[in-house]
């Protein structure tokens, strides 16, 4: 598998560390909604088809990426910097 890092270019998957599901939304830090926390920490959907996940480019720029990958074919449709994605979601939340 080859991941096209926005900083480093196309790199082999051995340079990356899988960091889990990127579709989860972490509850607000002060939230006491136990069900929401349980869901965040433990619940994962086994998605067939397109899925978003975090990958850390540990052998490169050490940036976390949000990789959109087809879970059946492993075809990667997009790669973005996690900071950019998180920032845009946060902005959206405020707006």
């Amino acid at each position, binding site marked *: *598998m080859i991941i096209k890092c926005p900083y480093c270019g196309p790199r082999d998957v051995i340079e990356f560390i899988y*960091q889990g599901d990127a579709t989860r939304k972490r509850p607000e830090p002060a939230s006491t909604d136990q069900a929401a926390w349980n869901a965040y920490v433990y619940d994962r959907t086994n998605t067939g088809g397109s899925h978003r996940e975090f990958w850390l480019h540990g052998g490169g720029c050490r940036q976390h990426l949000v990789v959109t990958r087809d879970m059946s074919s492993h075809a990667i449709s997009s790669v973005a910097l996690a900071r950019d994605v998180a*920032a845009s979601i946060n902005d959206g939340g405020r707006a």
Partner: protein
Amino acid sequence: MTGSRLSRGGRIDRSKSVRFSFDGKAYGGHQGDTLASALLANGITLFGRSFKYHRPRGVFAAGSDEPNALVTVMSGDVREPNMRATELEIYDGLVALSQNRFPSLEHDFMAANQLAGPLFSAGFYYKTFMGPAIGPFKNTAFWMFCEKFIRRAAGLGKAGTAPDPDRYERMNAFCDVLVVGSGPAGLIAAEAAATTGARVIIAEERPIAGGSLLASGELIDGRNPAVWAREKAAGLADLPNVRFLTRTSVWGYYDGNVLTAVERVSDFKPNRTKGQPRQRHWIIRAGKTILATGAFERPIVFPGNDCPGVMLADAVRRYATEYGVAAGNNVTLFTNNDSAYDAARALSLAGVNIAAIVDVRADVSGACRDIASVAGAELLLGHAVTGTHAGKALSSITVQHFNAGTGRVSGAPREIRTDCLGVSGGWSPAIHLASQAGGKPEWDEDLQAFLPPEPNQNWVTTGSAAGYMDTISVLSDAATKGSAKSRLVLPQVEAPMLDASPAPVFEIEPSVKSQKAFVDFQHDVTADDIRLAYREGFHSVEHLKRYTTLGMATDQGKTSNVPGLAIMADVRGISIPEAGTTRFRPPFTPVSLGVLAGERYGDLRPHRLTPMHDWHLANGAKTYEAGLWHRPMIYGSHGETVEQAYIREARAVRQSVGIVDVSTLGKIDIQGPDAAELLDRVYTNMFSTLPVGKARYGLMLREDGIAFDDGTTWRLGETQFLMTTTTANAGTVMQHLEYYLDCIWPDLRVHLTSVTDVWAGSAVSGPNARAVLEACVTGTKVDNMTLPFMGIVHGKIEGIPIMICRLSFSGELAYEVYCGAGFGTRVWEALLAAGKPFDIMPYGLEALGTLRIEKGHVTGAEIDGRTTAHDLHLDWMLSKKKPYIGSAMINREGLKDENRLTLVGLISMDNQSITGGSHIVTDPVPREPADSFGHVTAACYSPALGKYIALALVKHGTSMIGNRAFATDLLRDKHCAVEIVSHHMFDPEGSRMHG
């Protein structure tokens, strides 16, 4: 079958003789021969014994699809088993051995297995060896008993135990277009791609390019096609944008158009150039892949079809045209399609005598009749082979009338004397790589074969791999697939008008069966085994495959896949596409472990050494590895045991002063306006309130509330912190912080830098620690006012800038002194010199561990991924004023359960040492199984207490304090009485470190 060398023909170099040995006997061949062609030329018929029944087997194919002729190649003591004789190029001094026979190929005791045939049918092992639920042979016990005998009787070549002395290389390659195969399709596709300027890699499995052209009787541009192919290949190889790899098998197709290949660099050379690898492993990342992998001829299944002398028709042709070898004096052909006539034409041109052509079809084209007549072969239409007569070689075949429509055999058997039978049951495109890449192969009714699936990555198939079976359409397809922009002028092809579509006949099943009819030769799976699997309920192809092991041998069913499916479809009364097919898996052909390892053997880990490492070694340190780090365990004196050494070192720390290398601690520089905010979120306790110039002990949890790591973090400035982590978790903590900054809190303005290797650290501990610093530190005072507990100062030692933080892991008055890594040894030695009047003692990890066990300080042994802050009595560090990672999860019922294991101390009651990992039990006698209610995490002899002590995680730990129990270690045969005490075993008030 008695093969012989023809007087002319073939691409072998008859001027060069090669001597080799097979089963200890010397033979001769020519350069360009494979082991199979050379042995055939020497009249050898018997190549090996079959897997289960030990039946005599000859060579069956001429390439990578060979199921039978597997040999072991010896070089000195090194064995390379299961090499296909059909691909093995001979060289002077080659030593090959046949396999799966005892004591010899000619006389094999195990051939008696054949008589017990029905016993060894599909599912035999399961039915026989999975015993009843009770009794002496319950479950798998009988199998365990019999396995060693069976392993010897059934199998392939024996793996060697001698170390492999060969060198292997790995290569990474990139290209715009990878062409797999260099037959007519591969050559033209590569040329079309190369002319557009693309970077092209061509991988050819065989030593030379040409594929089917090498044995073709056609003319290309009026010339011999093998010569045309050679010149085309040479022209391509000369292009600057083309890399032409021969003897290179592409064996795997992975995601992202990553393909793996093995190049046989010097396997075929008697003497290797110095430094030349034996094989080279390629990882090729291709923009686009063109699979021009050709097609495999498949056999027809009929009784007695496995005896030596029965071969694929195309293999008989290839031995004659490529190697100048007649596989028999008097060849017959058996077919359901026209390609055998093309073979007949080539054979008769090469001077091989053809006795008869047996064709299941009632009628054939004029072109076919002409070929038969020119070859002087009797044409038996509407006939099938229903039996063979052979010992170690074929002597005759039985033919009968056959109706291809009904599949019925009728009429009186007729015997035809022949020593070689070439069989053609049609052609299966080599879709293996395409299938690996993913997708479901599609059945083609016309070809009676599976075609490659729809591409799911950037690949195309061309040539016969794509189902084009005549050279003219192969070439035009290849030019288009090579590049849509290609303007290649295609060569003229002169070929007889033959039709590749076979009659849908896969098996000849006479009503009276006297001989086994094999489907999978390599695993000895018969047509009856498939029917048995059906009767026993294994209908799906996936079940069929696993129950009978059809197609699971090293040849991956290259010849047996479609006939096997066809028989299953027939008994189920469904079509072949309805029966479906299994997905091919890498490797396409077996790959040696050596080439996968490449240069990566021996100790592959990096070794991390602290700046003071050489000093430690020079001063008697015995080191051990802590993760990747090498750390002193003890500094041994002559005649001292490890225990004596660490007791001496630890006692010196408590009595005067010691020094230990702490450079390995993880260190992360954290800077930015929001640095304090980040720390408040990741640590359970508060860091934003920490004054500049002070350090604080911090605890991190995981998101699920379990303890993760601990360490001290120092505030060096308003917006700058130095975080220390445990040695083992340095990388993980860094990753943890990066994750939150990148993914969860991108709005925090913080930058992280790993500085573990930037600083050298020495911890000076003991009642005289301050006096040591006072003797050597300049530029700052180190008294209790200037440098209180958890205080930080900057100063110099011998002019070298240092940073001192007063913190204690040992429980003594202690300081960690940090300097630039390059000055590590100088500062260390300066501290030693300053400590000389106090008999300063360098100490290792054993003493460090002893001191912390006495104090009840936790490390990775207790923060083991299962314990909470409460379990470790660190709940005082859980802030109630702010949320932090894990704070929402710590109060879950299971994490507050009173039955949880909690940290306690243990003191040995009987002056026996306690071993790490011992279980805590109440039984006064060692017994198995014992009800364990806890375990020992760390143990030592405590010089301060004069007793053997330990830390342990024990159920109801706190309320158990004062009770007695036993620490039992059945593995090391230890059982010792202990008292459960508080984990603060020494100086619980902490008066010493605050002093």
